[in-house]
């Protein structure tokens, strides 16, 4: 059963695909106290905040939404973005004004009294809680400013995936997008992510952080078009994995390998989304083989399988270059 689990100071999400995933270690906030105002961060404060957050996630989890557990997880991830970082932050919520939005809006002033919470909701009530700044404009055509928000919480079903590049570019450098994807949605059109949580119904919460490289690629998109953007993204994602293959395979940790496999799988999805345009017939096959080699190494760490990961990666990249596809 997917949902939030609190163990001592740590908030976890019981993911339908990945098992128990750590969302927030409130103890780390205490450890990082030197970077924040000390009077906000003491041991008692951590425990009080922990209990507040626990109550809030339970409240959200009991909501009528079919993905209420993911909404609770998003709230914890959002708190992780704000907690212990003492400066004004701007949050944009694009989706319904539900209990998770209200709860988060009420928490923001705790972290900094000038934090701002904007919301574009399909059915905006006349009266909103004091902490929320409603943006009353056309829901579909709302023009988003660039480099404006630190956190964007998005219902992809409401906004449409075609708005994703623009939404990402509305983030400040290093900003985070938390996007709710309905079950069965086309994953291939979602941008690279580092975290994907899945509930029992198959709904997903994807988080994407705006890195400088991703921002550059997204800006190019408007110039070179969708196909080129997809291809550049594929190359970017594979380069990201390839650049760290050595340490990745040398590490005894499963987490980074799982993330690399997820990224390789996503690259495969995007490759398939431009399938008809590929010059090489073999790139989908080679991408699959590369992913498979990572999985095999993840499951059985032998030298032979380790060597195979490098071989498959080289074969894929060689084919991509050979056919001038990327």
């Amino acid at each position, binding site marked *: *059963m997917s949902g939030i689990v609190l163990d001592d100071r740590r908030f976890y999400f019981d993911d*339908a*695909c*990945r*098992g128990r995933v750590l969302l927030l270690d409130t103890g780390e906030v205490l450890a990082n106290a030197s970077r924040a105002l000390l009077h906000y961060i003491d041991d008692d404060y951590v425990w009080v905040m922990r209990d507040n957050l626990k109550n809030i996630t339970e409240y959200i989890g009991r909501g009528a939404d079919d993905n209420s557990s993911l909404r609770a997880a998003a709230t914890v991830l959002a708190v992780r973005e704000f907690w212990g970082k003492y400066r004004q932050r701007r949050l944009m919520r694009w989706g319904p004004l539900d209990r998770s939005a209200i709860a988060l809006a009420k928490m923001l002033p705790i972290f900094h009294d000038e934090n701002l919470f904007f919301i574009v909701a399909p059915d905006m009530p006349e009266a909103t809680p004091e902490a929320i700044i409603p943006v009353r404009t056309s829901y579909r055509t709302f023009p988003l400013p660039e480099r404006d928000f630190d956190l964007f919480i998005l219902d992809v079903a409401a906004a449409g995936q075609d708005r994703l590049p623009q939404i990402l570019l509305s983030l400040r450098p290093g900003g985070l997008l938390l996007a709710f994807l309905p*079950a*069965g949605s086309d994953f291939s059109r979602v941008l690279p992510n580092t975290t994907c949580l899945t509930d*029992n*119904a*198959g709904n997903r919460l994807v988080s994407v952080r705006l890195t400088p490289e991703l921002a550059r690629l997204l800006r190019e998109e408007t110039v070179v078009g969708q196909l080129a953007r997809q291809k550049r993204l594929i190359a970017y994602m594979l380069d990201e994995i390839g650049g760290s293959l050595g340490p990745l395979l040398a590490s005894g940790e*499963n987490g980074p390998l*799982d993330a690399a*496999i*997820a990224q390789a*799988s996503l690259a*495969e*999805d995007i490759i*398939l*989304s431009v*399938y*008809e345009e590929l010059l090489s*017939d*073999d790139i*989908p*096959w080679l991408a*699959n*083989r590369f992913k*498979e080699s990572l*999985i*095999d190494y*993840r*499951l*059985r760490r032998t030298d*032979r399988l380790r060597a195979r990961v490098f071989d498959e990666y080289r074969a894929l990249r060689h084919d991509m270059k050979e056919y001038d596809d990327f």
Partner: protein
Amino acid sequence: MAEKKRRGVYTLPAYAGWTNQQLTKNCGLVPYLFHKYYGFHAVMAGAKIEDSYPYMKYVSGMDVEFLPDGELSTKLDYIDAHAEDMDLLILHGYYPNYEAMVKRYREHRPDGKIYLELDLNSWLADRTSWRMPNVAALLDACDVIGVAGRSMQRYMARKCPYKIEFIPNGFYNFADTDYTPDFAAKENIILTVGRIGLPEKNNDLLLEAFATVADELPDWSLRVVGGIEAPFRPYVESYFARFPALRERVSFTGLITDRNRLAEEYKRAKIFVLTSIKEGGTPNVIAEALSAGDYIVTSSIDAAADAVDEGRCGEVFPIADRERLANVLAGLTRNPGRIAQGGHHAVEYAGDVFDYGVIVRRLYYLLYGEDGI
């Protein structure tokens, strides 16, 4: 915290029901191993099409449920009744009646998983319209689509934009039999295993090829393991009438249901021959023969390169080419070093690629994004 619900894995046949042999082949093995490794409630459901199922003893813990008949409506009713427990549905091959089954399953279980094992050969792949909306809808509904051979995986990846995973038909050691071959104890035996006499198995090719070169390899014998199809019996009688001297050197064991005895056949033999005209992926017998250190000689089926690891542990001859097969056998029997070297590699290769424990772990990871062990 409430105890986690035990997950269920079900497999339903495209045809009326399952054969006894399918219980211990990929059709039965995958659900059985999901039960054994991950604690799934495993069920093979289908009409009873054989008098008895002696292989059920090998898949203990997996339920075999007999439906009243093999009609599609019966299977749909079964899905209606069991969907709640069907966390994973496994389908084998591509058949049009799957479209209705998958649609019904998804109506009940949008959150469930479907593994479609495309039991494909190039003949079938070429005759299926993979881009037709109904076919695409079926493929779209599946979480993992697998093929059993590398060349077929590549072929399919060129035909349609889907993630086509390599999920070979592997080898599973049911009885914990020691398959590790004693190469010094191996005998000069050429072996073939399967349903003898099925037209697509082309078994007469091996019998004829052996007769052609029998005089050149006087200390070699041929063992043919498997139930003999009735229409093939007259051929066997005529074969011995034509080659009476081979009665002592060519033996038909009949069907061997005892896995230990079958393993002994593989372990004794030095060469395993497959003469099929077409196969869906790598046949199970190849994986078993590799595990026992047999040198493989196979017809050029789609998965031939996989079967011989690109020539490292076997040789390929053109389909239905008796003369080439005879030449390969004659050449090999004069080169014991090659047979031994290939046999040693076969054991290592089988462990890496065809071990069902490895295969099922990868499949589980593909389905659930984690190593469940």
